């Protein structure tokens, strides 16, 4: 009997302590004990040396709190890869207990998260914010607009894509520097010239390995496709274009590089998940790679504090716009992505969150961030801030924003992109002809999204 009593006491104690533990676990209190409003901001961190974390800890938060003594800002970075970050964030946004008050959203997923109801529309907020109309680059607003036409984020960074090239190699091969190809044919021709002149050099690096994920779709396929007269998604009919001359030509370009001219990266490098780093940290600095289609951020690898510094890099490397297929207007094309700040639907302090977001996105703070990260600014007045344009390659990259295209405004993008990634890899490895690739893409997307979501041109 005595034993039973003791057992009951222990049981009760255990239950009670469990209860205490679970209560302690539930975070997301809307207000601190001192009556201040809490604003929790979440973004992706790459580790202890993370630039964005450093940016927040450089006195920025203190300055804001001094101006707004009733608000307390909590920095809550998530240490994860880009893919994992998206999954983790989505799970947090689902519950009011875990949703932050401001969240960094990749523009590739923002429409999807908006359609899922995770983000709150900011139309009324931006309506009362003069900078939105005057200073946020108009072209970038498409990237943060949901399928319903509402604004779900403020663009914070952006990027462009083009052809990185080794000036010395191209000049020695007799190609005019600065390199300005006018059509796809000139890019292919330059690659063949390099191959003939320097057999040991890889002429052209394209990202084609499925393990590089979204990079395959955006840095390779879409750079080609959006330079033709076709697109991946028809904005007016809201259908996916699963068969078009432009798509076939884009597949043919990839096939030409890897299987006909054989001017692409060796498949062993191309299919490696680290293909991008191998190209920029090893092959380019060693003079073993002539050209690579990649993002505007890639060149920062060669800066003094980068992973593979090159002295006088502006004399050795260049960044050229990627031409449209036959040189049709506007002559060049690029894809833009980047990160935005959004307010989750389940945030408890939306008003305070918006205040902090405005502070983050004022001219000086927004520009300081993109300078630190080597990104492009979404504000048209960043060029007035010292230190913005005098960075190497930035002027070229910023120029491209004007011809930028954005990824389709549809929440099924991830599914379509995944199909493209494996198809592009199959073309590059010679497992699919361009014609069969179009057929496989058509069948795959139709199967996944249904026949009423697709069209052919």
């Amino acid at each position, binding site marked *: 009997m005595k034993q039973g009593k003791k057992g009951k006491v222990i049981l009760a104690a255990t239950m009670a302590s469990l209860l205490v533990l679970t209560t302690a676990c539930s975070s997301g209190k809307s207000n601190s004990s001192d009556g201040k409003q809490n604003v929790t901001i979440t973004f992706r961190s790459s580790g202890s040396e993370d630039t964005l974390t450093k940016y927040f800890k450089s006195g920025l938060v203190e300055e804001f709190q001094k101006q707004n003594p009733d608000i307390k800002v909590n920095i809550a970075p998530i240490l994860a890869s880009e*893919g994992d970050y*998206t*999954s983790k964030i*989505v*799970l947090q946004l689902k519950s009011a207990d875990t949703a932050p008050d401001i969240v960094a959203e990749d523009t590739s*997923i923002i429409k*999807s*998260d908006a*359609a*899922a*109801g*995770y983000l709150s529309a900011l139309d009324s907020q931006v309506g009362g914010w003069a900078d939105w109309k005057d200073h946020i680059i108009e072209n970038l607003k498409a990237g943060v607009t949901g399928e319903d036409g509402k604004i779900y984020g403020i663009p914070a960074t952006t990027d462009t894509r083009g052809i990185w090239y080794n000036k010395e190699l191209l000049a020695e091969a007799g190609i005019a520097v600065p390199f300005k190809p006018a059509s796809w044919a000139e890019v292919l021709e330059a690659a063949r010239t390099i191959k003939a002149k320097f057999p040991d050099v890889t002429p052209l690096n394209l990202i084609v*390995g*499925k*393990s590089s*994920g979204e990079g395959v779709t955006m840095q390779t396929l879409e750079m080609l496709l959006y330079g033709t007269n076709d697109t991946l998604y028809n904005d007016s009919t809201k259908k996916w274009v699963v068969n078009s001359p432009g798509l076939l030509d884009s597949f043919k370009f990839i096939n030409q590089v890897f299987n006909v001219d054989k001017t692409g990266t060796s*498949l*062993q490098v191309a*299919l*490696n*998940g680290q293909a991008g780093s191998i190209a920029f940290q090893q092959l380019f600095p060693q003079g073993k790679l002539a050209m690579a289609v990649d993002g505007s951020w890639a060149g920062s690898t060669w800066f003094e504090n980068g992973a593979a510094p090159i002295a006088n890099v502006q004399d050795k490397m260049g960044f050229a716009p990627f031409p449209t297929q036959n040189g049709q207007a506007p002559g060049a094309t690029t894809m833009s992505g980047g990160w935005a700040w959004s307010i989750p639907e389940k945030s408890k302090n939306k008003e305070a969150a918006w205040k902090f977001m405005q502070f983050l996105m004022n001219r000086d703070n927004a520009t300081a961030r993109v300078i630190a990260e080597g990104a492009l600014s979404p504000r048209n007045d960043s060029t007035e801030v010292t230190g913005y344009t005098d960075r190497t390659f930035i002027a070229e990259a910023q120029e491209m924003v004007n011809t930028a295209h954005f990824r389709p405004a549809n*929440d*099924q993008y*991830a*599914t379509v992109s*995944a199909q493209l990634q*494996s198809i592009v*890899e*199959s073309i590059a*490895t010679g*497992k699919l002809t361009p014609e069969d690739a179009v057929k496989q893409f058509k069948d*795959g997307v139709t*199967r*996944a999204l249904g026949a009423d979501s697709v069209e052919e041109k």
Partner: protein
Amino acid sequence: MGRKNSGAALFLMPSVLLLLVFFIFPIILTFCFAFTNMALTGAAAQSLEFVGFRNFINMFQDPDFRISVWRTLVFLIFSAVIGQVALGFILALLMKEKNVTFRRILGIIVIAAWVTPEIVVAFCMVSFFSDNGSLNQIISWIGLKPVSWLFSFPMVSVIIANIWHGTAFSMMVYQSALDEIPKDVEEAAVIDGATGFQILRHITIPMVKGSIVTNMMLVTLQTLGVFTLIYTMTGGGPGTSTQTLPVFMYNQAFVNYQFGYGTAISLVLLFIGIVASLSYMKSLKIKM
């Protein structure tokens, strides 16, 4: 008696409850979600809809799924049935009645791979097979050119990795089974003039058959679920060369955010596991 039973029930309660909450309930949920369009993000995340057998129809029309089933079977047969089960048996047989020190040393070497966490095994094997890795160093001593193992022979690489990691378990199961064979049976066979192979075939194997089948079942189920090892070593690639069902399921659920589809794939995986277990169990009952 009744009192005794209620006492037992009381003590079993917590574990039954835990099983219900953390095992049975999720399985039922998984079963339900497999018939929905559940997604992690996008419009479908907001409105969960019952879609009937659409996920399963899509799956069987998806060439990637068929490839994944095939890869899973190849991985299973070579790394589990042939690799671990057979190699484990041979090891146990060779160690039988050998010097205790020898058994101990060899045992520790084999078991070391087994007690190593899967993720560590994967990293070890990546460094073993990588371009500048141990294997290429070794073959360069005999004048061979380095090979990109993970690229040129991805399936062979992950199979070898899984064999290395898992064989110790089979070895230990067989060791204890072999140790239990009474000596006089084998001695009688020797007196009757049986050869070593005859003893193995007609005496040793039939006597440990139960262990063989049980072990085969456990190893099969374990191998069907291998994810970390493959994902870390090759990510399912290059292409779809090592994309087994668990990797395929992960890609659909967490890379493409199609949870409904992912759970449907997991049900198929569960089904394959059940079929394999049942067939092993059946063979166990009939033969014993």
